[in-house]
């Protein structure tokens, strides 16, 4: 009898130990400049999840141009979550691979964009070319660094900000096309992603101005020193809304749906928003935003929905094969 009790206790202990020893691995496939953000966030989430459930979570990161990452996921990269530069790239996960539902953007607050950013100019210290606004960078002799809109989400935001500025200032699409054409004439190198462009501008010392994510520009100042670079805020830019989603097909297959959802929910938590702000992303949470109000300059921002008719339209008009960008760049 004693032996049976002993066996029962032993079995229960073994089962209990097996049940509590859960280790989960997630893959977050993201765009180029979010490396530092998600290093901080993943550590915080792992701590939060361990305290909540007792499970260990390891989040692996993959970073490249946003468009290229969307293609990689569609090609089979088993992402649990996609945190991409723009909604159009997440849309591709539905359009091409049917990996997420069509209404993926409605599943989380703020159209599934837990933080925002904008596009600013990064120039060399002293601003030797006297760059203050968009008109200054299209002048002959100014060299611009921006990535390829075909592969980079950031580049598409850059492009649309320039287009929106020219459309508002010069009043016609033809003029806007001419303006953006002049801009790309000044671009000697097209990197595939925003981080590559930063390398081109900062480390390879190419170009007079880099069109940059705001968070990336501040990161450059932090990492390389404000004595070497300056951030110039143009009179008008665009509200960049990086979006996030669980990749339904893969999380169901891997059994990670609950933790992947919790991971994205946590981006909206006070701590998640604080981490985003610390990494120079504009937080959605008003309390956190108020705390960091001095960090982020105020400027007029176009929006993708109001000024470009949404990402589907903007993508089709400007960035699909044969679109306006191809007409400008391949001319």
């Amino acid at each position, binding site marked *: 009898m004693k032996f049976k009790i002993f066996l029962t206790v032993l079995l229960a202990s073994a089962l209990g130990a097996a049940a509590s020893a859960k280790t989960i691995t997630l893959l977050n496939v993201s765009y180029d400049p979010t490396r530092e953000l998600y290093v901080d966030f993943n550590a915080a989430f792992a701590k939060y999840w361990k305290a909540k459930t007792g499970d260990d979570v390891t989040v692996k990161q993959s970073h*490249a141009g946003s468009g*290229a990452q969307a293609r*990689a996921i569609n*090609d089979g990269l088993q992402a649990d979550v996609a945190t991409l530069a723009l909604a159009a790239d997440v849309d591709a996960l539905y359009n091409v691979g049917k990996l997420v539902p069509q209404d993926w953007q409605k599943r989380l607050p703020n159209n599934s964009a837990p933080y925002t950013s904008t596009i600013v100019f990064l120039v060399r210290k002293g601003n030797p070319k006297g760059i203050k606004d968009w008109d200054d960078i299209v002048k002959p002799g100014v*060299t611009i660094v921006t990535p390829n809109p075909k592969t980079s989400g950031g580049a598409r935001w850059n492009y649309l900000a320039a287009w929106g500025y020219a459309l508002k200032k010069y009043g016609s699409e033809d003029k806007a096309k001419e303006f953006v054409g002049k801009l790309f004439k000044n671009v*000697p*190198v*097209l*990197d*595939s992603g925003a981080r*590559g462009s930063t390398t*081109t501008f900062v480390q*390879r*010392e*190419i170009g007079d101005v880099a069109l940059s994510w705001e968070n990336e520009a501040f990161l450059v100042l932090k990492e390389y020193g404000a004595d070497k670079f300056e951030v110039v805020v143009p009179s008008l830019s665009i509200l960049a809304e990086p979006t996030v989603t669980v990749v339904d097909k893969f999380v169901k297959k891997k059994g990670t749906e609950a933790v992947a959802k919790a991971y994205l929910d946590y981006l909206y938590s006070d701590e998640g928003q604080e981490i985003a702000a610390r990494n120079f992303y504009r937080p959605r949470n008003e309390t956190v935003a108020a705390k960091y109000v001095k960090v982020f300059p105020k400027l007029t921002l176009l929006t993708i929905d109001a000024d470009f008719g949404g990402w589907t339209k903007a993508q089709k008009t400007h960035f699909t094969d044969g679109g306006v960008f191809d007409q400008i760049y391949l001319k």
Partner: protein
Amino acid sequence: MRTLTPALRSALVVSFLFAGLPALRAQSNSSEIQALRAQIEQLDAKLRILERKNEIKEEAAATAASTTPKITINDKGFTLASADGANSVKIRGLVQLDSRLFFNDGGGVVNNAFILRRARLISEGVFAKNYSFQLVTEFGGSAVTIQDANFGINVAPSLQLKFGKFKSPVGLELLQSDSWTFFNERSIVTNLVPNRDLGVQASGDLLNGTLNYTLGIFGGLGDGGSTTNADFDNEKDAVARLIATPFKNDAGALLQGLSFGVSGSLGREKTAAGRTAGYRTDGQQTFFSYAASTIADGQNWRFSPQFDFRNGSLGLLGEYVVSAVNVRPSATGLKTELQNKAWQLAAGYVLTGESSSYAGVVPSTNFDLAAGTWGAFEAVARYSDLRVDDNAFPVFASAASNANRAKAIGVGLNWYLAKSVVFKIDYYQTKFGFNVAAPAVPATQILRQDEKAFITRFQLAF
């Protein structure tokens, strides 16, 4: 105002010019330096842009390489593999065209021949890194047959599982690829071991790769037989093989290439037909077969010690097989256990210095007349001996029309024109022995004298 004389004016102008010249020169030099500096800066910028473009191209190429499937065509076949190597499909082929010429074989025997000995299309693949398959289709002979059809699971180096149709792991030489045996034909020892069977086996490397085990359950076959792709009976064979390569990891050791071990099978057979379709000579002529009424009924077992040794150009292979079977002369006749035994010792030496190998010789140069290179040459020799149990005669087999012993010597020369192309010339001489009940002159024509066979083969294997 007094005017200056022309001479004085000239002197003043000259003095002035000379006085102002260094300043002018300095001004000129400075603007030139500035222009040069600007030019250098422009060139430097252009150079950095070119370097960066090149860097981006290389990054793009590296990224593409990490996702682009790989196509490989070489002397091992045609391979399509995913970028990460976890999935691949390989197409290989084997074609053997033989010429058989028999000497002094008496009148009336028509056995000289050209034969398409093997014509195989081999497809192999790996999926999800650990799951493999093999499908071998034989187009040689009179009908298209499936030689091998199996899939495997790589659980760990110490545990590999295999299911389907494949070679039963008993005979050492039988397990060697058809392409790379020393001789055109395997020795008469192979008559006593099962060939391709349906089954499941587990195998793996232990003790740092120095011990290899194989355990399997198979449908069970008669000597030298292959399955007909179905096994409708309750009798199965358990097969095991244990091979040691104790010096495998001792680089440079004399015995590094030594492997030895044992294999065996144990099972029961109950067949309406005879135990074997027949034992054949090196020249592929039948010298023994059971009477048509003989049936296998009861336990059968095989035991085979074996070894393989390679050192530089030298290769040795030896095996002994005893195959025991319980047979009845008819469905109601008395059961008798028969033990047939055979052994062989074969040697090869690569005359051109390349290494001898169980997986074939790789010539250091290919045959190319224009380049003056000749490939590799290997001389081979073999002695083999098979004895049929005397108790088989005359109840289970005719003493008049069967030999009870065959002793064969073989010598040959293999010319490796390239890894995938081989020309082989073999000479075999087989001496037959007979049961005491046999007549002075055997009833079977080919047994009346030694078999002297000259067999050449042109082989393409990739």
